[in-house]
């Protein structure tokens, strides 16, 4: 009982900390802007060019994932939020003050993760549902639309939001391991952008095997009602991403428990 109440206290404290710095507010604003704004831009472009598209493109067109594409840009904003939640504590030195208030390190990380995951899940679901609904509205009358009454469509939108929340946790774990904002954000961006480019140099058959394990490819799978070619299905992709997050977080927590927090490095 006491453990529960102190985890609650640690979580509430982290919530105050999260909403009282500008970087969180900015990150949330950028996530909204990218997901919904780019969603509007992409769906509008599709609508205006619909008559010029090839029959193949039209036959394979997916109104769901195309309206959610903005979230694949917003993942970087979410990643920065997750990273800064912990690296800002190290760059400012406030990790020492934080740990004197909550010396149980496991509890501290649990509190931070609860705040991060909850806020990013709500944010992710909000922006993805908004982008989807606005996108379908823009498609209406010209481009085929999808409806949330379809189970696969609903799943795609829900998992697109979850994808953002999981990436925030992944970025947080990287931040906890590296303890430096620039380093952690670089690694995060590399994993999402550079690794797929490296994959392009592999032979074609390797490429197909390799690329589907890549986080943003998993993200595309999660937000598609039908599995794209050479990709996992939505649920398998979700489980693999969960495994990445859990694995990285486990390493991060073990390091955090063992390391000294007093001196900066």
């Amino acid at each position, binding site marked *: 009982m006491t453990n529960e109440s*102190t985890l609650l206290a640690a979580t509430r404290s982290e919530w105050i900390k999260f909403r009282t710095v500008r970087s969180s507010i900015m990150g949330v604003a950028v996530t909204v802007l990218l997901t919904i704004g780019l969603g509007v831009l992409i769906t509008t472009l599709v609508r205006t060019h619909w008559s010029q598209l090839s029959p193949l493109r039209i036959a394979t067109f997916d109104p769901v994932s195309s309206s959610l594409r903005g979230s694949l840009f917003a993942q970087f904003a979410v990643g920065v939020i997750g990273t800064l939640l912990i690296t800002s504590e190290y760059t400012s030195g406030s990790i020492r003050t934080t740990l004197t208030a909550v010396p149980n390190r496991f509890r501290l990380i649990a509190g931070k993760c609860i705040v991060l995951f909850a806020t990013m899940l709500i944010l992710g679901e909000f922006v993805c549902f908004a982008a989807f609904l606005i996108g379908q509205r823009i498609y209406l009358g010209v481009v085929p639309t999808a409806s949330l009454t379809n189970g696969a469509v609903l799943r795609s939108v829900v998992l697109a939001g979850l994808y953002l929340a999981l990436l925030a946790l992944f970025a947080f774990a990287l931040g906890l391991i590296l303890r430096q904002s620039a380093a952690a954000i670089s690694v995060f961006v590399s994993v999402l952008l550079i690794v797929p480019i490296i994959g392009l140099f592999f032979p074609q058959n390797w490429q197909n095997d390799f690329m589907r394990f890549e986080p943003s490819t998993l993200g595309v799978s999660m937000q598609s009602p039908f599995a794209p070619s050479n990709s996992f299905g939505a649920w398998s992709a979700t489980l693999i991403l969960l495994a990445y997050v859990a694995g990285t977080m486990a390493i991060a927590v073990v390091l955090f428990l063992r390391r000294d927090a007093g001196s900066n490095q």
Partner: protein
Amino acid sequence: MIKIDHLTKRYSDTLAVDDLDFEVKPGVVTGFLGPNGSGKSTTMRIILGLDHATKGQATVNGTRYAELKDPMREVGALLDAKAVHPGRTARNHLRALATSNQIKTSRVDEVLEFVGISAVANKNVGTYSLGMSQRLGIAGALLGDPGCLLFDEPVNGLDPEGIRWIREFFRTLANEGRTVFVSSHLMSEMAVSADEIIVIGRGRFITSGSVNDLTKNAEGTVLVRASDHDKLAEIVTAHHGVVHNTNDEGLTIAGLSSDEVGQLSFDAGITVFELTPQRASLEEVFMDLTAGAIEYGAQKMDSAHD
């Protein structure tokens, strides 16, 4: 009460704390004195569970810090005043701290008022001077009304008025029966603000005791101005005294008390104009104690400051 129990801390290749073993008692201000880099901050970080001990342990009221339930209600600490997120206001910073230890938020305004930064409480901490940050750090330490307080180099960055304020503040805390543990590299500061002093150098315990004890044990000297300095020097040397210094001002004699020097002069028929016992200054005692224990000292330490 803080108990340091055969504490050792090794960073990859340096021994920062070497088998320290002492207690810090409630009701007095205990100074923790040592040159820069002597292991004071490391010891304090280990007490607070920030760094892990290599050997031994530190406990507060019999419990390791990491196992305290609401630690801020038992221990208040100010290690590094700038260890605060610069983009958060002082009030929000304190509110987050209070919430984590289930301290009611009305306490935030009380401590802000007490340290005198209420007027700037809604400004980002990044805009604060070092002195204001120190006050914010003290406010944070006091949030939980703890019985035990730790301050690492608290007077750094304070103006003279702030320094006087903080000395009285330590005194008040100790008089209320709290344990007050204050580190400094300045002996002169400890001499006026501490009752008990623990001296360390290169991570090792050197000595402890009250300010008076420390200077009493140190060798004092006697300054004499007399009618015949050469003759007096001869007699003093014959009686196992040591003449340190001869000039027109007089002789500085070690190893004999002023009574003995006076008697010897009288017996030899030398007129004494001035006879002054000189106690070793605290700075001198400190320099003697920590000589050879200064990790990052200048080669020739003829100034006792810094």
